[in-house]
């Protein structure tokens, strides 16, 4: 049952801020049509709303507004050192959406952005052109769903479908879609491409219930990954971040059993394994935003990144890798930091 406070909040995207110039894009019209009752407010630049002073990330997260804008620079970024490259040489990422539907207490987005509102960049074609420019120089491995969960917004954006269609025609491009979403209907509507990889972040239900607010349960994620594999789509499983919680061996051990009971290791292209890690500035902001056992942990600063200390790290990784090797060949396992 929703509390009186929750009932008093506007529903998600009750307000849509539209950057001047963005209204002409078909993506904008599609999104606006999906939310016909929202108040529309014209803005000059998305940062006028997204980067205002005095915002409360926590308050906005409970009733986020949507900002539709045109991305003019930094269309593609080089892959960050804290991210898993899966051994790919030319590793990049792009952000079609800033911020996420879900509310994971350990998520770096709350340390990265001062706003809980969501920005959707409607000029996907411009990002495509930038990728084509890069492809003239070398193959590209591109992650498209880091600063959001693109699949969770697919019903009203269609961005994932566009990316899959784009990848299908470019053999030198490999795209990874990281998600916790389990909307099998959306997945079935996305065209199949061998160079388009669905990568599910998997967590034990105990962690999902406590820390990954609004995300589908493990069973639903497993079902979605299984359905994608059955359609011969490329899938990855991401056990990242592994969290140091009481009885982590029991919870993660059960999770591995559940997953590999349902999904054949032969259907999995790769697995990513990594413990929680975060930049110092993000962690500082996250701790200001909310009190959470996960982020309050006394981390060690190792090579400019906050991480569990070496002993704990080794304990978690040794456990996870030993268990995973029982299910899948070690060549398919990628560990962050290796």
């Amino acid at each position, binding site marked *: 049952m929703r509390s009186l406070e929750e009932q*008093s*909040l506007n529903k998600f995207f009750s307000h849509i801020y539209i950057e001047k110039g963005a209204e002409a894009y078909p993506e904008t019209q599609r999104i606006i049509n999906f939310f016909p009752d929202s108040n529309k407010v014209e*803005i*000059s630049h998305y940062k006028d709303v997204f980067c205002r002073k*005095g*915002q*409360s990330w*926590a308050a906005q997260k409970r009733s986020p507004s949507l900002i539709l804008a045109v991305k003019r620079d930094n269309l593609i970024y080089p892959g960050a050192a804290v991210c898993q490259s899966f051994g790919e040489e030319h590793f990049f990422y792009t952000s079609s959406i800033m911020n996420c539907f879900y509310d994971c207490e350990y998520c770096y987005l709350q340390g990265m952005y001062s706003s809980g509102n969501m920005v959707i960049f409607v000029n996907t074609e411009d990002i495509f052109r930038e990728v084509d420019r890069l492809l003239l120089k070398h193959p590209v491995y591109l992650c498209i769903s880091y600063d959001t969960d693109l699949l969770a917004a697919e019903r009203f954006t269609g961005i994932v479908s566009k990316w899959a269609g784009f990848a299908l025609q470019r053999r030198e491009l490999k795209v990874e879609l990281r998600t916790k979403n389990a909307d099998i209907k959306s997945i079935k509507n996305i065209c199949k491409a061998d160079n388009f990889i669905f990568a599910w972040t998997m967590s034990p239900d105990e962690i999902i219930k406590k820390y990954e607010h609004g995300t589908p349960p493990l069973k639903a994620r497993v079902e979605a990954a299984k359905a994608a594999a059955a359609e011969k789509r490329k899938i990855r499983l991401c056990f990242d971040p592994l969290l140091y919680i009481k009885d982590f061996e029991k919870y993660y051990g059960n999770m591995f059993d559940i997953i590999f009971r349902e999904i054949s290791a032969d259907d999995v292209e790769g697995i990513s394994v990594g413990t929680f890690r975060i930049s110092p500035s993000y962690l500082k902001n996250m701790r200001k935003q909310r009190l*959470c056992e996960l982020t309050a*942990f006394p981390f060690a600063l190792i090579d400019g990144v906050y991480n569990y200390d070496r002993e704990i790290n080794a304990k978690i990784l040794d456990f996870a890798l030993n268990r995973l090797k029982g299910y899948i060949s070690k060549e398919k396992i990628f560990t962050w930091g290796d």
Partner: protein
Amino acid sequence: MIYMACALYCEAESLINLLNLKKDKEFNRVQVFSNENVTLFIAGVGVLASAISASDFFACIDCKNPITDWDIFVNIGVCGCAKYTENIGDIFICNKITDGTSGKTYYPDIIYRHTFKEGELVSFPHIIDKAFSEKAFLYDMEASGLYVSASRFFKVHNMFFIKIVSDYGVPEGVTPEKIKSLIAARSESICEWILKISKYGVKKDCIFTEEEKAYIEQNLAFFKLSETMKYEARQLYTYCKLKKGEFKETVTGFIEKNGIKVSSRKEGKVRFEELRRAIIE
């Protein structure tokens, strides 16, 4: 606390009566009326005048009782409207406020449900006549100044600009009596909504009780920690309390069990590392 600002006394009168606000004689540069939950001040007419009054008032308040992230600011007043499709007396919450002189635009967050209309407002430094009014939808003479001032003290989701349409660009007929009557007829619904949402602010939890805070300070002195280590220690105790629901018994228990005495900063650092290990394992 709810802080209300009206440009004129005639805009404030019905609110003062409804909320049973009493004149607060502590302030001599602005007229202030208050009860235990609401403080209303008369900001004066004009963008600049209202911004200066508000800044002066909030600075005084903030020195005495710091304004918190869950305090609320509300500007209530009348405005002109460029569209005859809207009715005199309609209540608007402004979702976009533009300063008519600088062209700068501000966006209060509207995260709470309401039954009022919403619209964009432009604040001009002078009275707007009919011909000029076509540049804006709603227009007044204070909101942008009050926004700039209030945004230094309040979170943007806790700032509300509520305007009642008084005219269509013919300000001559807008007498103090008319303003008073327009607001009086609507003050109950406005106040009811404000009082309701004022209960819902995101309050930042303070994890430690006053007694625990005092214990931490004693404990930090006991371990003879450096300033950097003190920061780390507070973080460790926060983690311990979130994890176990308490930290004092854990820390005291560790000290007593191991018979710890600290005679130097170096020894304190070693002992503290042992405590850290004990807490995270």
